């Protein structure tokens, strides 16, 4: 009991330190770096959601780029309309459209846009979750389907050249809620809004995993059918956690767009989706601070490496996948246990050796007799 409490409070201290750093970073970091951190916080928000579904519930979704993208596109459509004033968005004019397509209409209103940022990912997650989990499509079958979802969504977006900018995506935003996106005040407001969402998601998910619902999720991970025979309907819980993670990804996408200035099918496709999973693995799945650390560290590393040796990044991230899953399944968070694990291994080895010697002695004695 005591050790358990220590472990939890240790993690909490780390969480507080990280949030303190994020709170104060804009005061001593360049605006370029601050903007980068803000982007990483969006990723961290996605990572928390993926951890809820993968780390806690054991469902590996390789298609969360889709939900990130949906949130981002919803936001981008609003930004695009606002930036275009009364005219049509630029790419529509280029591809010969003369009238705004009907599905763009709701994005004229900022309020409806914000609602859609949450509603669209939720609805798709509900439909996909309902169709897969209710019919007990699980494990790797679900993972592959989710990957196919990402591929399908990306091709669909690329094909919508006229309506959603195709492979170029949506870009060239100038204002958000009437203010220029280039204003330092707007930028720092966006930073703190992102941070607020990140902290909010962290707190809400921390509460959820401590409640019984969190235990049910872990139970589903340990044995879905057993959970069913405990009287729970796993499908409902899985749909719930899938939607929860989709909403977090959607919100992250919406926060990402105005700060980065572009969303394209490249951010929705298979590769970015699976990269989101590795953030969680690197940080430490099954803990909530792990994914935040993972998203921040990995992406910071990505920026540093790609700035200096662009060739190396693919090798690096590739080896990270292999290294973390094979050798450090607990991620960065579990690093503090590594010395203890090594000592345990050595002790185990010693014991074995001693046992062997004992057995030999016994055997020798018997033979002697």
């Amino acid at each position, binding site marked *: 009991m005591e050790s358990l409490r220590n472990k939890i409070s240790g993690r909490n201290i780390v969480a507080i330190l990280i949030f303190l750093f994020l709170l104060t970073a804009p005061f001593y970091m360049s605006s370029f770096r601050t903007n980068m951190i803000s982007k990483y916080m969006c990723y961290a928000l996605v990572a928390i959601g993926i951890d809820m579904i993968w780390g806690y519930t*054991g469902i*590996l979704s*390789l298609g969360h780029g889709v939900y990130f993208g949906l949130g981002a596109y919803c936001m981008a459509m609003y930004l695009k309309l606002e930036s275009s004033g009364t005219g049509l968005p630029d790419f529509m004019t280029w591809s010969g459209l003369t009238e705004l397509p009907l599905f763009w209409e709701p994005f004229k209103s900022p309020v409806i846009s914000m609602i859609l940022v949450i509603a669209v990912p939720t609805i798709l997650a509900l439909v*996909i979750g309902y*169709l*897969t989990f209710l*019919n*007990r*499509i*699980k*494990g*790797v*079958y679900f*993972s*592959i*389907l989710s*990957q*196919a*979802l990402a*591929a*399908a969504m990306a*091709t*669909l977006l*690329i*094909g*919508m050249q006229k309506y959603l900018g195709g492979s170029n995506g949506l870009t060239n935003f100038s204002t958000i809620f009437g203010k220029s996106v280039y204003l330092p005040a707007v930028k720092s407001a966006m930073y703190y809004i992102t941070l607020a969402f990140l902290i909010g998601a962290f707190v809400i998910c921390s509460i959820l995993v401590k409640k019984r619902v969190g235990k049910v999720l872990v139970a589903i991970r340990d*044995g*879905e*059918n*057993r959970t069913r025979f405990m009287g729970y309907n796993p499908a409902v819980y899985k749909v719930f956690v899938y939607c929860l993670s989709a909403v977090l990804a959607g919100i992250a996408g919406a926060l990402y767009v105005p700060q980065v200035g572009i969303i394209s099918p490249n951010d929705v496709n*298979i*590769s970015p989706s*699976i990269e989101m*999973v*590795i953030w969680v*693995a690197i940080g430490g799945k099954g803990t909530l601070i792990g994914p935040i650390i993972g998203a921040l560290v990995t992406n910071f590393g990505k920026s540093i490496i790609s700035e200096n040796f662009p*060739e190396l990044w*693919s*090798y690096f*991230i*590739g*080896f*990270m*996948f*292999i290294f973390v*899953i*094979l050798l450090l*399944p607990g991620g960065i968070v579990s690093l503090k246990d590594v010395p203890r694990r090594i000592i345990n291994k050595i002790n185990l080895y010693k014991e074995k050796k001693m046992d062997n010697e004992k057995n030999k002695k016994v055997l020798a004695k018997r033979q002697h007799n």
Partner: protein
Amino acid sequence: MELFISQIFNGLSVSSILLLAALGLAITFGLMGVINMAHGEFIMIGAYTTYVIQNIFKSNVPEKFFDTYFIVSIIMSFVIAGIFGLILERLIIRHLYGRVLDSLLVTWGVSLVLQQLARTIFGSSNVSVIPPSFVDNNLKVTQLLSFSYKRIFILIMAFICVALVAFIMYKTRAGRNVRATMQNRAMAASLGVNTNIIDAGTFAIGSGFAGIAGCALTFLGPIGPTIGTSYIVDTFMTVVVGGVGRIVGAITGSFIIGMGTSSFEFFTSASLGKVITFIVVIILLQIKPKGIFTISTRSLDD
């Protein structure tokens, strides 16, 4: 009518490539409970092997024998991809037996590394392979209807490979050992089957077939470091729809996905075709959540 027939032919052609790729995947998935995301990269390895061998032939072999390069290529694609598969299995995969989701992520990492390796060696732009001259023409049936020899050739190749695998799996001692290990690993091991060798060998052969698929792909267009990625999703869908560990599943799955994709793309557009195929797969899995052909077990949670 002509259009319809050529459409079916196209679908069959796509199916045959998927089948070549899915064959190895379905068996290793069923045997070892690992998903190999780097399987697409074995396709790439096969394709680049063909490219390299053609270049060697170009500079060293008299022109009239040039066409024989493809026979060497098929064999070498199989061998090289197989060797890569063997190395991957011994170094990494064997630590991941039964950990499906983990294996998926690790092998994704492997695929990133292999892609970058290809980029480093061959450059990131596509390269093209000149198909042998005898597949250049089309088989003209009527004025409007003609089949390209390239695609016919690939179909035949797929057919031979499937027949070969089926023969190995169901008629030889090694195949029987593979099936035994697939059904009950512990039991097979205790009966004296060396499951280590079975695993490594099966994985290598499965990778080899992906290499042949890559060799076949060079007929159809230029190849690049990411050629595997463009096929991997469809290949996996094939396995999922068909069911794990069964050849007949791989055949059915590739037929459904290949025909589906090509006809949906024909009737709508390339992008919508993918989406419709995805929806069809989801609907199919509603009825058969573990694929059309399954091996049923009694365990509670697997």
